[in-house]
């Protein structure tokens, strides 16, 4: 068992554990922060898998993203502090079944397939450079599309969210 597998597994377990906490705690802020740390652990997995740029990016983006999620949680939940332990789930059994099934299926596929030999990772600096080349070369169109889509989404979301102008 290589050190890489060890670290990947460690952070993976952390990610899963925090992911479970998200749905088990009754305090909204806690679950938002649990999701944050779950995503951060995923970023750490990227680092363990030598995808340095992606890892750092993930860790950086999720901090802001999930904190913003936290404030919306507090706004839109009836019991943000989770002091009332009110039931906020439905179709629990079916959901558990579906989740377990999906996990087993994916894991099964992963385990039964023969992936062939593992390749060696390029150095981090080269990765960043090549990723940039990819982004501004072959995948330029995807990149641009993503950018434009984000802009559209920002405008659309704002337009939907703001208060309707009073007729006067």
């Amino acid at each position, binding site marked *: 068992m290589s050190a890489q597998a060890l670290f990947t597994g460690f952070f993976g377990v952390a990610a899963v554990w925090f992911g479970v906490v998200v749905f088990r705690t009754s305090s909204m*802020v806690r679950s938002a922060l649990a999701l944050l740390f779950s995503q951060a652990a995923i970023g750490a997995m990227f680092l363990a898998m030598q995808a340095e*740029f992606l890892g750092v*990016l993930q860790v*950086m983006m999720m*901090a*802001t993203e999930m*904190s913003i999620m936290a404030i919306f949680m507090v706004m839109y939940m009836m019991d943000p502090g989770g002091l009332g332990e009110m039931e906020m789930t439905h179709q629990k059994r079916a959901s558990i079944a579906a989740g377990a099934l999906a996990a087993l299926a994916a894991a099964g596929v992963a385990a039964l397939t023969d992936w062939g030999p593992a390749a060696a990772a390029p150095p981090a600096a080269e990765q960043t450079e090549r990723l940039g080349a990819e982004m501004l070369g072959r995948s330029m169109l995807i990149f641009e599309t993503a950018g434009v889509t984000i802009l559209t989404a920002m405008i659309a979301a704002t337009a939907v969210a703001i208060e309707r102008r009073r007729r006067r």
Partner: protein
Amino acid sequence: MSALAVLAALLAGAYLVAVLEGWSATGRLRPAGPAVSAAALLGRESVVPRRPDRVLFEAAPLLLLVSAVLAAAVLPLSPRLVVADLATGALFVNAALAYVMVALLMAGWGPDAAYAMVAGWRFLGQLLGYSMPIVMAIAAIAMRAESLRNTEVVASQAALPNALYQPVGFAVFFLAAMCLAFLPPFDLPTAPGELAGGVEAEYAGARLAVMRLGRMVLVVALSAAVTVFYLGGWLGPALPPWAWSAIKTLAVAAAMLLAGRYVPRLREAQVLAWWWKLGIPLALLNIFWVGVVLLVAE
């Protein structure tokens, strides 16, 4: 070995910054002040509020300290004096410091008190202002260095420090750093007069000591970041490299703390409006400017 040296330097810097901060708060320079205050805090009891969210309340000061230390770990004091010279170091600094906001959010929500909660959410609003310009400024830095590795960022400034090469980016980053360390006049989350301490109001004793230490380390880390990104890090004549880094870092920290003493605290609405209407366009302009200069230079 170098890790220990950096850690020692970090603590020494934090102490000096604490002395400066004491001056900017009270107007008196007391070299022994921080040590005495620390001992006094450690001696006093530290009662938790009546109904805290215990996990968040306890974790917040530690998270503040850890994120600041992590950010400092990738900043070089000299070509060899750096804990981890990551290939994406410049970005990593910002990634680590993003968790300062998380820590303050926890500290605001944890104690179940109105002042602290308002203060915590206030800082989230402040972050919405500065977080984008700070990344854009770093992007412009990386453009010139053609690398995110901090040592190469410094090496790229041998001819001309970035502070002169891209002054707009320097200004944006400096102010954003003050926002990030919630130093006056951006000290909205700890506003003594408005929120009676804000996120710090419910902490006491050892917990408060950790929080203050984290704050000081944060200021040092940000000053070091300014030094590395814009003031040519260790580059300088005569003196050994680490000395230059130390001098520049302390000078930046002193400038940050000095600025807050003579101006009133800003209104949150103003902070947000200025960052969005002025900061972001200026940061973009800076990127454009650096790009043009690079093209012309070749």
